[in-house]
């Protein structure tokens, strides 16, 4: 799937909202209680780092690149509308690949200013190293390939010397934060690095409160460290070992989400619930969906001659999908707030928020109400256990279907108790037509934004048959083993989108066939395509169809007087995903439900008859099923198979079943039919 539908990574980051003014005394107190690091001699590592030189390492295996000996985050809310955040880390490098921890990356943008950045290395032998702000460089994203034209997100990079195995490296970053929302996330469980000890300190002005929610980790109570100050400590946290197709980091890492609530309640508080967050997002969209005269005129033009509301909705959706180009310019609050509809319409470009905004505006002109829906394109980032937080990176729409609007094409529909039937639609995804939803968004938890506030809801999961490849082939085999004939592939859902996307990026006609060639190369040792055509390349509401004719020499292998024929001619469903030495630790995530079928009919050469056939396969699991059958009818060898993915995820308890299933499929894909000379 083309990744253009993604919004800026900024939306995955956390924010801290500026709060009320507080007295300088509170700040000073906070610094005193938290502990100002003892001054170190120039060039020497500070005492809080030096104290870790001989501490025992947390449990780790021989593949661990580094361990995090100490992590400290201090969040100090000040009364002047700013927050000071201090981040300290100390790693012990264990392996050469651990050198990467010697590069410190500090992101900043319009909400965040880096006051200082310091790094140190305590080598196993010799004097300490120190690097400071002047040694750092700043970078921004370069390139506009994915339409991310302009963002204020930058990174300061500091390289700590001698980040070699056996050495300790540490850093301290002090930031001044002016967040739009008073919320913070403490992620103490790390990818690849076990943690020995992690501290989180929160200092609030008098009268402020906080609300903390723990995710993927047993709740730890804080200790009161002073007036309106709390400290949390976790110890010996194992590292997250990355696995293919695992849930996103937010879904597995131990973390604490902290919402800050100013005294007396303020508009700029941390979200206490999804309703709060929805109100905040709704506020950002206020006044942005007012149609200009040009928009009104365009709606009239687009809907003229369209019979019925659904046809009109389709016309508007197609316009936004096709004619509004994806371009992201996200500066300041622009990372969260859509541009006004007239501006988007004039330029004919915008990001996902803008595309949702312009479509919503146009739908309103034909009397159809729609609502923003915030979602993360990685399913599992937000779950029902997640507290209200800005972990969404994409904006789509929930379109309220008018009463009585029934159509078989409208499948991405959920029934809302108050709003009625809501059609979930992604106007940024120009490969998925109105009525459907791509796999990554299905069964994903998203925030419905209405004037009344927000509501977390599960997006619909579509039937498996709406996403898949139905491949049929009529082929004939000659006595020398050459296989030839016609193949037809009918693709729907994400399978169609993937193929359309691949063809769209082709820069010359002659290359259009390359994707078919690559697919054939996985299954055939020799092949030549004698004919190929595409149907419905740009008709997104129709199945994508590939018709091609092929000749595969030496397809059947000779063995004495036998001919060996693999009935599964094309296509691979097996996967080596779970063939790893280490046992799986996390669930396996699928892109979405799917149903693929193959039907291959091979007319056998004259003078041969079937001597041996592979056995039929039937494997049924709760998350997927596979069945295949090879049979003969007259002189035709017929192979049929169906592979259906029913769920979006396989829990850890069933991962061994998935491994078994993949092995069954791999075996079936290699199975062979044996032909022998016919006895007359």
């Amino acid at each position, binding site marked *: 799937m083309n990744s253009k539908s993604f919004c800026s990574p900024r939306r995955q980051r956390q924010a801290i909202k500026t709060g009320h003014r507080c007295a300088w005394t509170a700040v000073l107190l906070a610094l005193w209680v938290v502990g100002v690091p003892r001054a170190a001699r120039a060039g020497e590592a500070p005492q809080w780092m030096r104290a870790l030189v001989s501490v025992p390492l947390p449990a780790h295996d*021989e*593949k661990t690149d580094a361990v995090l000996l100490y992590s400290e985050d201090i969040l100090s809310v000040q009364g002047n509308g700013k927050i000071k955040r201090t981040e300290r880390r100390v790693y012990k490098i264990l*392996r050469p*690949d651990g*050198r990467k921890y010697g590069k410190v990356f500090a992101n900043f943008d319009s909400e965040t200013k880096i006051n200082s950045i310091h790094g140190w290395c305590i080598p196993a032998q*010799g*004097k300490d*190293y120190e*690097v400071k702000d002047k040694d750092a*460089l*700043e*970078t*921004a994203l*370069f390139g*506009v*390939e994915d*339409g991310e034209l*302009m963002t204020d997100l930058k990174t300061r990079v500091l390289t*700590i*010397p*001698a980040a070699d195995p056996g050495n300790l490296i540490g850093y301290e970053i002090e930031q001044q934060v002016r967040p739009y929302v008073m919320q913070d996330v403490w992620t103490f469980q790390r990818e690849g690095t076990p943690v020995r000890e992690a501290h989180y300190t929160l200092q609030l002005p008098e009268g402020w409160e906080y609300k903390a929610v723990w995710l993927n980790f047993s709740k730890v109570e804080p200790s009161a460290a002073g007036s309106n100050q709390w400290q949390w400590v976790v110890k010996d946290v194992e590292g997250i070992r990355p696995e293919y197709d695992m849930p996103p980091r937010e879904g597995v890492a131990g973390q604490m989400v902290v919402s800050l609530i100013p005294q007396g309640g303020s508009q700029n508080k941390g979200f206490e619930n999804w309703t709060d967050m929805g109100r905040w997002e709704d506020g950002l969209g206020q006044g942005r969906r007012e149609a200009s005269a040009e928009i009104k005129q365009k709606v009239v033009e687009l809907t003229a001659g369209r019979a019925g509301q659904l046809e009109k909705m389709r016309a508007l959706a197609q316009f936004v999908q*096709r*004619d509004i*180009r994806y371009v992201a310019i996200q500066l300041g609050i622009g990372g969260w707030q859509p541009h006004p509809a007239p501006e988007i319409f*004039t*330029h004919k*470009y915008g990001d996902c928020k803008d595309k949702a905004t312009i479509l919503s505006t146009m739908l309103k002109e034909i009397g159809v109400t729609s609502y923003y829906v915030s979602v993360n394109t990685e399913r599992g980032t937000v779950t029902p256990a997640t507290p209200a937080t800005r972990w969404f990176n994409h904006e789509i729409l929930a379109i309220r279907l008018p009463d009585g609007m029934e159509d078989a094409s409208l499948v991405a529909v959920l029934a809302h108790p108050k709003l009625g039937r809501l059609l979930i639609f992604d106007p940024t995804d*120009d490969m998925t037509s109105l009525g459907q939803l791509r796999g990554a968004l299905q069964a994903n938890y998203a925030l419905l934004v209405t004037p009344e506030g927000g509501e977390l809801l599960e997006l619909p999961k579509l039937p498996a048959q709406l996403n898949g490849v139905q491949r049929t082939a009529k082929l004939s085999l000659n006595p020398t083993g050459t296989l030839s004939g016609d193949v037809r592939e009918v693709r729907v859902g994400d399978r169609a989108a993937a193929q359309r996307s691949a063809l*769209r*990026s082709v*820069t*010359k*006609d002659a290359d259009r*066939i390359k994707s078919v*060639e*690559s697919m*054939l*190369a996985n299954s055939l*040792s*020799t092949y*030549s395509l004698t004919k190929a055509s595409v149907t419905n390349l740009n008709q997104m509401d129709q199945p994508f169809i590939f018709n091609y004719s092929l000749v595969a020499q030496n397809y059947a*292998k000779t*063995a*004495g007087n036998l001919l*060996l024929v693999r009935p599964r001619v094309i296509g691979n469903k097996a996967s080596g995903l779970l*063939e790893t*030495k280490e046992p799986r630790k996390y669930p396996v995530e699928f892109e979405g439900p799917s149903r693929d079928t193959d039907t291959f009919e091979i007319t056998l050469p004259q003078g041969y008859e079937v*001597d*041996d*056939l*592979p*056995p039929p396969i039937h494997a049924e699991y709760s998350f997927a099923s596979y069945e295949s059958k090879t049979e003969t009818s007259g002189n035709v060898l017929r192979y049929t198979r169906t592979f259906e993915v029913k769920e979006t995820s396989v829990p850890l308890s069933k991962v061994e079943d998935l491994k078994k299933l993949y*092995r069954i499929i*791999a*075996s079936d894909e*290699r*199975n*062979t*039919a*044996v032909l022998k000379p016919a006895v007359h």
Partner: protein
Amino acid sequence: MSFCRLSLMVGLFLLGATVYRVGSSSADEWMPISPEELKMTSEAAAPGAPAIILYRQVDRDDSNAHVPHEYNYVRVKIFTEEGRKNADVEIPFVKGDYSIVNIRARTVRQDGSSMVYDGKVYEKEIVKARGFKYLAKTFTLSDVQPGSIIEYHYMIDFAENKVFDSNWMLSSDLFTKSAKFTLKPYGQFPLQWSWPNGLPEGTKPPADETRAAGHNIRMEAQNIPAFLVEDDMPPEAAMKFRVDFNYSEGSLETDPDKFWRKQGKKWNEYVESFLNKKKAMEQAVGETVAAGDSPEGKLQKIYARAQKIRNISFEVEKTEQEQKRAQEKGAGNVEDVWKRGYGYGDDITLLFLGMARAAGLEASAARISTRDDHFFSKSLMKARDLRTYVVLVKLNGKDLYFDPGTAFAPYGLLPWSETLSPGLKLDRDGGTWITTSLPQSGDSQVERKADLKLTQEGSLEGKLKVTYSGLEAMYRRLDERNEDEAQRKKSLEDDVRYMIPASIEVELANKPDWSSSDPLLVAEFDLKVPGWASGAGRRALMAVGIFGAEEKHMCEHTTRVHPMYFHYSSEKVDNLTIELPLGWQVTSVPKPENSDAKVMLYTMKVENNNGTLHVERRMKSDLITLEQKFYPALRKFYEVVRTSDEQQIVLQPASTAASN
């Protein structure tokens, strides 16, 4: 007046010129658009293109050192939705060296109406560090649809009193219908220009139009093909059409022979000065070789000793502070290298040369080009293109090349980029041209010897020994030189995974020698290939190409645009013994295959020795470059390889064998 040719600046500028296709005109007026351009829906010379450059112009004026500048104009026709991404424009620049000014842009709709860009031009900070700022001007045009024409023009103002080398980059990722280029050079420095990779078909070379006001170099080009990237192609810098302009500090030498003679003398003087520690070298040789050693024996020992010198060029890059603390100075001569015990790659190579001479061997330094970035051309007279030293030793009447300054380079083998490379064998007269040798496939082998058993369930289990030799060993050692044992183990196991076209279980069982330049790197594994034998009713079938995964996707596409290019010759030799389960019988084995395409060779032979199968497979490639017209033949060769690898051994399991 200062003369500035900072390589970084030049590099960044060239990048900009590459990314941002530049076009026509003088002032800020738009050039007329023809009705045909408005109506276009495709370009016959670029079928399927998402967009093309209709017109492009670059007018550079270095003539006035106070106001050097370059005017750029680009007109792009959008054909498809994908082509609309060309409406996002990013023009990089280095603050202080040049600035981008007077950006104008517009979108012209298919009906001829236009929308002048009045939005913001953003300035994006790409990298900022200690007095260096690399920025980009960024904007995106409005209302761009298939059928639209987008155009923009801007001026690059170079810093006063700085003159840069430059180029006209003709190749772009879009087809260019028409392009015009001019350059008014700075008159105080001699200028050379060249087009190392040729010019597009039908393009006349740049013409120097001397006028009263000075030189004006012009060129026009039509129908420049879009540049495509393919697997196994020569380096891009060797393929893209461009015209390079280089200023000279001194007088301009137009005769290549004289140029290289002069350059060769300079290098020779440096080398001889660096080597001028005869006594120290004699002492070093005395500590390294024995009096009775043969000349070759001496050379081998000297080579091995030189490679024991710590090679800084191949260590983990140190930060500024680490370098300062390490106090590692650059060597002034071979004695420094010998005594300190460390040096950069070239220092070590020259130390080897000094010792070889001190041992009485006939040895010379050669300054050679490398073929990893672009291909050398003597006539271009670019001294920096001869970029590294090797040592040429005359031994037993043969010319042998050595580069001990490349870590883990085995005795007698150069790294691939230095093979088949032209260079100068240095002497006091400037030197003579040589071309380094190309090792044969047999010099760099991957030999796989497996003793396996087939289980009743159809899995293969047993021992695998992989012996890498020559460059195959060298590059594995180089890649893993700064890694630990666990990573090296994983790397070798992954290597086996890439060889076998199935999911496998593999575990390294020995401790390979990672630290030496020994020609052999030996890795032993415990191997299991689950379910390798497949079912066929009463029979079981087993494909013979267990190590055929790497050939599976070679030349999978029918068409090819560029020539094919491979780094070095190599050979794979497989020798497998497969013991069958008790009572199983071999019904048939495939016929032997022998496909000899001269520079490519594939053989496969399977024998059945009383229930033990013996499979021999050999795959040899002595191919470095292959013209595009021969691609179908190479594709055919790989089809034969894959077909043969898929041949099946037919087995009769015990139960069915007994019942027959």
